[in-house]
């Protein structure tokens, strides 16, 4: 995105891929499932194949999804992805530790999405994206814990909610570290 335009998806390049980063006047804004407290996607599902877990993670049952893609139309963040073809992951790349609602192999013809790495966070680990980010731009934690890193960020940084006007009430926030 251009710093000149600020957060404006109409002026962004979804496939921006320069040879070196950071580039003067540009910034990145990754978008993923916001795990909304008021998720528009789960309401539209005709077969109850997607729902919000008690801990807030929005999940999909790949064994029940009929592939109507109504949830993809309902998601304002483009966070849901459909398996248009047969997904093939080399056996060597498969994680043998799977979760029914998370990282197990998905069949063709169903919708999938970010699960906040349900198989990791339920075991007390960070989601893979948080762990792997080389600059530590992603923070993950318990908002109810006043001593958590995420609460520190929320209380002291400029925090921004993407498409706040849609009342999705995300559990995913953007903050300006500087």
């Amino acid at each position, binding site marked *: 995105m251009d710093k000149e335009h600020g957060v404006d998806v109409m002026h962004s390049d979804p496939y921006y891929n320069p040879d070196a980063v950071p580039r003067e006047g540009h910034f990145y804004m990754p978008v993923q499932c916001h795990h909304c407290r008021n998720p*528009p996607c789960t309401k539209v599902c005709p077969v109850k194949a997607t729902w919000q877990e008690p801990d807030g993670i929005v999940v999909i049952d790949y064994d029940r999804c009929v592939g109507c893609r109504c949830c993809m*139309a309902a998601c304002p963040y*483009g966070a849901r992805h459909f398996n248009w073809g047969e997904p093939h992951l080399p056996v060597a790349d498969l994680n043998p530790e799977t979760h029914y609602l998370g990282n197990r192999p998905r069949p063709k013809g169903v919708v999938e999405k970010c699960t906040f790495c349900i198989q990791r966070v339920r075991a007390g680990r960070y989601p893979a994206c948080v762990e792997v980010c080389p600059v530590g731009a992603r923070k993950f934690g318990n908002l109810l814990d006043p001593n958590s890193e995420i609460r520190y960020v929320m209380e002291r940084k400029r925090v921004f909610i993407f498409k706040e006007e849609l009342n999705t009430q995300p559990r995913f926030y953007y903050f300006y570290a500087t």
Partner: protein
Amino acid sequence: MASSLLQFFLGSVRLVTRGGRGYWAWLSFLGILMLIGLHGYRQQTAVGLIATNMRDQVSWGFYIGNFTFLVGVAAAAVLLVIPAYVYQWKPIKEVALLGELLAISAIVMCLLFVLADMGRPDRLWEIIPFIGSLNVPRSILAWDTLVLNTYLLLNFVIVTHLLYKGFFREEYKKTIVVPLVLFSIPAAISIHTVTAFVYNGLVARPFWNASILAPRFIASAFCSGPAILLVLFQILRRATRFHISDEAIWKVAELMAFLLFLVPSTRKHPFTLNLGCLLIYSGVYIEKGMGLVIPGMTPDTLGEIYEYTPTRVEVEVAAGIFAVGFLVFTLLVKVAVPIVMGEFGIDDLRRERQAEARAH
């Protein structure tokens, strides 16, 4: 009861297997289209919906556009049913049945388009109430499947009852038909408004997220459905002995409130009448497919513009589904017209059987 149902069925089979060269040529044409559709669908099931040009950015395309258009066509039967049964408008009453037949065929096409669009058609049973896990009252799409199937069932029962009674040369039961017909009027409105609500309720898509959508759907449906019917009336008038008066055609055209049909002279002239029908039909078809579904998805929620055009597979499948719909309509008309005209009934079936037995 069982034996008379069997006789009704045998009589219907007799009617559909009888026809001139034109009839069989038409059926073969539809058969070829259906084979093409089947070929496309087989390719699609083999590799998945990647055979279409729909992607994450434009996740609904040609199939859902056609579905939305045909829901409108199906809803339009009500336009004929209201004046025929409520106001007792005689010239329209005899053709209201044809509107119901068209509604049945259109709903069949709708359901097939949804089936073609589904990523997992093998899990269709999940949508069946009580057996699957239908998400009512929350999901509008769940309501849409409910109203569509109710409307199909309703029209099917009305038509079957009328034809069954006609076949046995009896008067139809008013206590059955009138309440069902009255119920089919709000049902027809509901299939179109609920389909509009499916788009309407999505806060993520500003193009659809407006309260004008449902009235707009109704308005366009009341044009596209009758436009097809008017053309079909003129064809049926030539092809069968079914009498459709000019008044009925003009009255239907008048109800459509299209500019060409507001002027009595252009409404009554066959050329401008058919031109108007063609314009309306193509206009609404473009409005629903290219004008509603695709723009709602372009640009996508993150501002990306993905240019969608249907693939060969999508066009093939759509052609096949339209062929199925036309086949259903043809067969229904083939059964309905002789029975309604009183040209074929239980006595004719018995007479023919006796003649055949004697010939042996």
